[in-house]
């Protein structure tokens, strides 16, 4: 603890797939509040993990030089970061978070798609992985062992996650898969052979180890589906994350230098982000709402959720630059085109997506390209949450079937959302894709500092909490989303807004509309909600009540467009509606 008290400046390097960002956190005298911390400067540059640089530190040093110009303070000298601090030079601590390294390439092999294979997929989504293929014998009488072996040999993945059979259950089909994997591994050069992570029928562990132990490294963990009714993902998730840290993060070019400068092990960005979501959950202390965090990056979308002190992280392997093309191959272009307020041919859309992948650091300059970017963010967000939702146990938290469980606040982060030209656009994208129900506050991580704060929390929790409370997360507004069915234009809720200064406003929410009422950042108001008997605002069907709301950059939003949100089928009408919504949130 004595050491912790001496830390007055912390530098965080957040090395993403495209950008490397440095954030400098400093202790400031907080008067009666005592010591507190603020972000005082930041710098951003391209990540240099790939050619022509092949060294993460090149980007970090470049950003350090930029930070020196901004702060007028020397941070880098004699070929290294100056730490600990000497007078006005250097920083007390340096922490690094990483999502830049290539994800683990993974082949999943198992028996039943809805059981062990689905569990394996969920386990894999907790780490930066790319699932190259799934091997299963479902639907065929004979085991296609040649095909399995050829697939594994040709892909030469980093890891084969072998699952299948409840404990004490199926044996032969699992061993057939193991046989094929062993054969494939034996045909690869030793340094190309995949690690086999076995998380299947526990009774087969000795046979699996005996079969493959001489050929490749076999790691045995608890069965992901030990009984028909239970799922147990933790050990497989931990093993995959550790493998990612060892083989990707610590082995990244330049990581050794960064580790030498740092006081802490390198941390995956998603893990750091989820710490912030957990902190928010504990801070809010709500038992009837969870907390949701979304980080839309260039190559991945991270969903972190916390319900009743249980936390969940899902990493969807698509972001705004890398992944949309593959997404279109899986889902078609129509779901993206439907979000555009102007007509666009599929060919033009694909052209933009291709070039976004070729030049992921660029930003939309033309409004048409911005609409495409926003459509992509909506669908990546939606897909990421669809993937995450089955892993959540929301406990007693109110969840309308098929809808997002009650969450408040919703933290949005990542370049995909934070770089929107106007805050209302980030809010609209969030509402369109997540479709929250009841009452939620939307927090914008305007400096993309949330993962950095999560990393700082591991070093000095007080500093992270203090920085978070000092305006790092900005409220976009409080959103009330009544859920139910009505005719368009029908009044579904009456609301009285009672402002702190005593003024009040009586308003009505009509089905199909989205309205924004004034509530400035930091301003508080009491809302007296009276939904009609067929609508739920998170307090129970037809039940109203008084709730406190805090304003934000956009205001107080009543989203009565319906859940699920349905866009008009007629293209002209749909575009008019979309234009209207954009107009509603400030253009």
């Amino acid at each position, binding site marked *: 603890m004595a050491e912790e008290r001496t830390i007055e400046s912390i530098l965080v390097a957040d090395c993403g797939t495209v950008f490397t960002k440095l954030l400098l956190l400093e202790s400031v005298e907080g008067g009666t509040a005592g010591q507190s911390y603020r972000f005082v400067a930041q710098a*951003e*540059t*391209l990540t*240099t993990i*790939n*050619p*022509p640089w092949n060294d993460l530190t090149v*980007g970090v040093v*470049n950003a350090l030089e*930029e930070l020196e110009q901004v702060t007028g303070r020397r941070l880098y000298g004699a070929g290294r970061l100056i730490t600990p601090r000497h007078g006005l030079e250097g920083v007390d601590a340096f922490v690094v978070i990483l999502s830049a390294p*290539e994800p683990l390439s993974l082949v999943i092999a198992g028996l039943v798609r809805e059981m062990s294979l689905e569990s394996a997929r969920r386990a894999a989504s907790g780490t930066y992985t790319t699932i190259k293929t799934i091997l299963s014998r479902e639907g065929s009488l*004979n085991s296609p*062992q*040649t095909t399995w*072996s*050829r697939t594994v*040999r*040709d892909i030469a993945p980093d890891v084969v996650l072998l699952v299948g059979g409840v404990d004490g259950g199926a044996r032969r089909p699992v061993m057939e898969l193991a*046989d094929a994997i062993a*054969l494939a591994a034996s*045909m690869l*050069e030793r340094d190309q052979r995949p690690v086999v992570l076995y998380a299947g029928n526990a009774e087969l562990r000795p046979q699996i180890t005996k079969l493959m132990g001489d050929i490749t490294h076999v790691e045995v963990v608890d069965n992901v589906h030990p009984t028909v009714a239970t799922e147990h993902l933790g050990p497989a998730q931990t093993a995959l994350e550790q493998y990612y840290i060892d083989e990707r993060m610590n082995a990244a070019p330049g990581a050794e230098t960064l580790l030498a400068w740092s006081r802490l092990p390198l941390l995956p960005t998603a893990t750091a982000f989820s710490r912030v979501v957990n902190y928010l959950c504990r801070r809010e202390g709500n038992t009837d709402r969870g907390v949701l965090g979304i980080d839309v990056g260039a*190559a991945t979308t991270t969903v972190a959720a916390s319900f009743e002190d249980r936390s969940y992280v899902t990493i969807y392997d698509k972001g705004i630059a*890398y992944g949309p093309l593959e997404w279109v191959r899986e889902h078609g272009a129509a779901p993206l085109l439907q979000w555009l307020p102007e007509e666009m041919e599929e*060919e033009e859309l*694909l*052209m933009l997506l*291709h*070039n976004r*992948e*070729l*030049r992921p*650091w*660029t*930003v*939309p*300059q*033309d*409004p*048409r*390209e*911005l609409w495409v970017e926003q459509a992509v963010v909506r669908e990546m967000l939606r897909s990421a949450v669809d993937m995450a939702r089955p892993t959540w146990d929301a406990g007693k938290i109110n969840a309308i079937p098929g809808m997002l469980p009650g969450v408040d606040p919703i933290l949005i982060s990542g370049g995909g959302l934070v*770089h929107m*030209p*106007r805050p209302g656009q980030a809010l609209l994208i969030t509402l369109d894709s997540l479709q929250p129900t009841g009452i939620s506050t939307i927090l914008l991580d305007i400096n993309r500092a949330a993962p950095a704060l999560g990393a700082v929390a591991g070093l000095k929790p007080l500093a992270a909490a203090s920085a978070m409370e000092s305006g790092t997360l900005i409220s976009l507004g409080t959103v009330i989303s009544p859920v139910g069915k009505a005719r368009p234009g029908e009044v579904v809720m009456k609301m009285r807004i009672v402002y702190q200064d005593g003024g009040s406003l009586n308003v009505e929410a009509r089905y199909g509309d989205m309205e924004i009422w004034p509530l400035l950042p930091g301003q508080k108001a009491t809302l007296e909600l009276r939904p009609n008997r067929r609508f739920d605002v998170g307090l129970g069907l037809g039940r109203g009540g008084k709730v406190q709301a805090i304003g934000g950059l956009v205001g107080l939003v009543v989203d009565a467009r319906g859940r699920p949100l349905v866009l008009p089928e007629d293209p002209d009408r749909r575009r008019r509606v979309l234009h209207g919504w954009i107009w509603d949130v400030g*253009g």
Partner: protein
Amino acid sequence: MFIPYSVVNPLITVRIPRRLPRPGEVLVRLGETVEPARIVAQTVEPADFCIVDVARELNVPVKKVKAYLKVERGATVSEGDVLASRGGLGGQVARAPINGAIMGSGRGRLLLEAEPQTVQIAALVPGLVVEASATDGVVIESTGAFMQMGWGNGKEAFGVLRVVVRAPRHPIRTKHIDAAAQGAILVGGSHFDEETLEQAIAMQVRGIIVGGIPPSMIPRLEALEFPVVTTEGISMAPMSQAFFDLLRSLDGREVSVSGRMRHRWGTERPYVMVPMPARGAAPVNPETPLVVGSRVRVLRGPYTGASGVVSDIPKGLIQLETGARLPGVQVDLGGKEFVLVPFANLERLL
């Protein structure tokens, strides 16, 4: 912040890596001079294989399979050859599904491996071998005009450059591809269509360099035998003037074209190189700062592919058409057209 760059330079010295896809054998020595067609390294691609489940095909227990085998480990077999048979009336046989050799046996099964394929890598550019590892490949130093491209179909070729359009906005049409196109690497302006591609294949062109191609043509182009590279990525926009002017000045010269690229992890950029009998040309300096007068290209709409020079670097933020406010520069696109472009959408031309 780093501003990315593309090389589009009439005379520089470059180092071109020529790497094998997997460890193999390097066939040239350090310090050796090589010509474009010289094979510098080779490796063996993993062979096709198949597992023959003899026990199942003969319907006998695994332990008894050995008694029915007609081939031994290491034997060479042809497709249809009998591998094992169970005689007698209604007897069953297991036949070889591919040509190959018996590489393993066990648990009632045979492993057949086909003849492995040798993969060879040519020098592609003439020059001096300045790095040679024992198993991975070489690096060749060469001098000449060099251009980094935006997209490539993965293929490579060496041939004579032939500019077939007059302006960077002109697409290649069938009328541009006559008998003189045979064996040539064609330069067009903006793009080309399916019909033109058919004509190019029929006339046996050796490669195509254009501004862009539509996304719908990508699968077809990736299946071609010859390289297609674009300066502007996937686009219908005109070729950037800086690229077109340099290519036009090289009309008739021998050119090396590499369309090899990897997405996302590890960037190998497609390139066009026109070797020159010159010595002492300097390599590009990636540290060249962005200043007023720097040559740049715009990477995003509405000015995708436009090239010009930086005419001002404003101190504050610039307002984009989307409403965003970001740091950026003013670019003189020529013809008295000045546009504001954020740093994020700029590329230095070196």
